């Protein structure tokens, strides 16, 4: 592309505006919070507990902490509750501002095979969606690219920071693969014949095999490159980015809901000898034995949805979580990762609450949007529970965060005190002033 043209495109494509909230400075001195009920989630609750954190890391937690540093700031939070920050395990936050405006959509690259896409690089730390989301207790999001057969690499982002580098907690988290549709779509609106659909399915499955074959070949050639008699191998970014997948350092996240998709994906990853996480998983409860046997964790998406089939019980999506729990399948709960839902991630805790209303123990529901999400995303060394050595990333509430009427009153991400203001609060305050000026409200 000619430089002039690319400049013009850059100007038109970078439609963005900044949120009013100012990213917090790093923690400058040790802070002790006392007299709050602490819910570490990795162990039992501590009433009138204390938590000490230094340089963004939890250094002590318990009923009474001795040996406090000299310059410690003590915050008394009597009657309040402390929980680990909530984790949204699948979203496009940072990659979309307004779903209906093309210039603000940065989550679907051209092409079907894009393993070299890195979500964190396109993350807009000034998005207005970020302060709105974090003000309801969500501190970390799993930002996922979408579209194609292989969409790209996802990243775990903290909801505060001046740049995408500041905000990145860990990247890459994993490779995202949209499993082909296995069933024949007979909806009247579908113009493709049964044969055409079958052919398309086979083609996509062959394509997946080919991609992994090529990546393996690349890895082999690269390892051998430079040895006597073996020529140098050029770097290919697509296959290069897949090395951590092939070496089982990070998993491939397979997006699939339907039973045949799940069965086939499990079989395929077994043959490919790679780590798999199932995302979506509407039918996961129907194949829970298979998932348990193969140790495949599930990011259960969108509890708040209608049953997948007309003959299913009305509460099927609500009870999927408890069924997985009883079957011993590792899972976490996520809201829908569709770009339309990105602005609505603040409602994540209520998805877990519905699972609890329909049988999942409350403590498990809470872990399904904190600790279990962290474990499945591979970030549990830093977040997900309140333990010594983990990040001081937590929220202070006036009650159970799974209840809508509960408010988040204070938030820390790596020890940084987060501004809980957002666009909505600003507009609310602004228009309250209008009605005060008119003498309608006090």
């Amino acid at each position, binding site marked *: 592309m000619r430089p002039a043209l690319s400049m013009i495109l850059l100007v038109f494509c970078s439609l963005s505006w900044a949120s009013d909230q100012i990213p917090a400075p790093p923690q400058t001195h040790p802070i002790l919070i006392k007299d709050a009920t602490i819910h570490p989630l990795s162990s039992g609750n501590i009433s009138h507990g204390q938590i000490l954190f230094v340089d963004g890391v939890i250094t002590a937690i318990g009923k009474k902490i001795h040996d406090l540093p000299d310059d410690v700031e003590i915050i008394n939070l009597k009657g309040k509750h402390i929980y680990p920050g909530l984790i949204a395990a699948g979203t496009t936050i940072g990659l979309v*501002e*307004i*779903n*209906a*405006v*093309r210039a603000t*959509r940065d989550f679907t690259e051209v092409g079907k095979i894009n393993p070299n896409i890195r979500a964190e690089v396109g993350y807009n730390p000034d998005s*207005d*969606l970020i302060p709105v989301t974090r003000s309801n207790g969500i501190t970390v999001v799993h930002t996922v690219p979408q579209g194609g057969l292989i969409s790209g690499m996802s990243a775990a982002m903290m909801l505060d920071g001046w740049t995408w580098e500041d905000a990145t907690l860990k990247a890459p988290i994993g490779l995202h693969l949209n499993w082909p549709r296995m069933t024949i779509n007979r909806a009247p609106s579908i113009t493709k014949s049964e044969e055409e659909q079958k052919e398309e399915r086979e083609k996509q499955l062959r394509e997946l095999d080919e991609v992994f074959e090529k990546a393996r070949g690349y890895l082999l050639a690269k390892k051998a490159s430079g040895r006597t008699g073996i020529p140098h191998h050029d770097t290919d970014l697509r296959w290069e980015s897949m090395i951590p997948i092939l070496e089982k350092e990070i998993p491939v996240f397979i997006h699939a809901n339907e039973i045949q998709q799940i069965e086939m994906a499990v079989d395929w990853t077994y043959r490919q000898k790679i780590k798999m996480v199932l995302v979506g998983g509407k039918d996961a409860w129907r194949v829970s034995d298979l998932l348990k046997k193969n140790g495949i964790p599930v990011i259960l998406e969108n509890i*708040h*949805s*209608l*049953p997948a089939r*007309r*003959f299913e*019980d*009305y*509460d099927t999506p609500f009870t999927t979580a408890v069924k997985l729990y009883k079957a011993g399948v590792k899972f976490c709960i996520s809201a829908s990762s569709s770009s*339309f839902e*990105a*602005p*609505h991630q*603040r*409602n994540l805790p*209520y998805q877990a*609450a*519905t699972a*609890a*209303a*329909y049988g999942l123990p*409350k403590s498990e529901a809470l872990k399904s949007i904190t600790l279990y999400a962290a474990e499945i995303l591979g970030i549990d060394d830093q977040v997900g529970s309140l333990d010594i050595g983990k990040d001081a990333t937590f929220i202070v509430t006036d009650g159970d965060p*799974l*209840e*809508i*009427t*509960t*408010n988040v009153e204070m938030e820390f991400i790596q020890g940084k005190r987060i501004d809980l203001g957002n*666009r*909505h609060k600003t*507009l*609310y305050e602004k*228009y*309250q002033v*209008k*009605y005060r000026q*008119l003498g*309608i*409200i006090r």
Partner: protein
Amino acid sequence: MHFNISLTALLAFPKPAISLLRFLILSFIIPAFPDQQNLYAGTYVTDYVLEGITHVINGNYDQAEVFWDSLRGKEFSELEYNFFKGMTIDTVLSDLRRITRGDEFEERMNTVIKLYAKRSYPQDRHFISMFYFGSAHSFLAIYAYRQEIPDCHSGRVSSPPGNGKGTPQTTTKIPPRRDLELDALVEVLDGKRMVHCHSYRQDEILMLTRIADDFGFTIGVFQHVLEGYKIAERIAEHGAGASTFTDWWAYKIEVIDAIPYNGSLMHDVGVVTSFNSDSDELARRLNTEAAKGVKYGGLSKEEALKFVTLNPAIQLKIDKWVGSLEEGKDADFVIWSDNPLSTYAVCEQTWIDGINYFNLIRDRKMRKKIKRERNELIQKILSSKDNSKGETMTPSGHEYELSHPFNCLKGVIR
């Protein structure tokens, strides 16, 4: 408290006003129908379905609640049903313009619609008001049309024009050519047909209230009304209701200023406000949507519950039957396991007109029964020695199981 039915075909209807179209929206209450079961289990007892948007003046709908059981073997005209006349109009430009609803939507549209969408008007927001004033379907035109009707039907004696000296003459005017579109709009001016307006931004809401004031009618309810909080005093003064999302925002450019405090702030300023779902899934959880009125803007719990019960009933003018538990009102109620504003609350029973349509215990029994029957059928297949291809069986008919006998008697709280 509404959700939309999408009538894709209407998108291609090449006119900005389609008040000619009439929809009879029947809320069929079919006890064992899966979609209805989903709603009962979510305690949803009265639904309000709107004819689709995308036209400046949309079709009319005559809302009726019809009982499936009473429909059996009876002529439709014999039925007892709740009825009101309504009409939707739309001021949301992205819907009217049809081309700006996002790339995915655009891709799905066929070529004919695309061509039309680019050529249709309005394309700019300020033109919407001109449409109401200056087009063939404007309120000016309706006003003139209405003036003519009584003149010709009453055979009224009118004085001849001029200096008034001559003998008064009885004149019979030629009636105006009947225009079904304008007929419907005349009902709006006469206050006989309620107008619901799909709206997002404060400018369009303000514009429409002014036009309605000028022509002497009142907008029934502003739907979605996401910037209603910016102009709440005007909505209250005009006398319209507001039915809003609790917390959807940022999906289109016009809703970038939508805030979850919208409902509570409009309420504080004096607007009768309700929460709607616009979704058959969210419709099941309006109880916890109400809790967002407490969270954002600090409504009392009682007031928040009214946002999904009494207030929508008032807005739909059906509050003499439903919306609260009072003597003489319909026995429409829900039994909860917990405070309905709690996310842990589960609906245990749903009653409509004194009939128990959903019951958690009965539901569990039915599930067991279905499971048993399924197993029996599987066993029958497995134990069958007949390997030949069997004959095709036809189901004996729809058998919906209910614990009570069918009847048309409406249950009333006494």
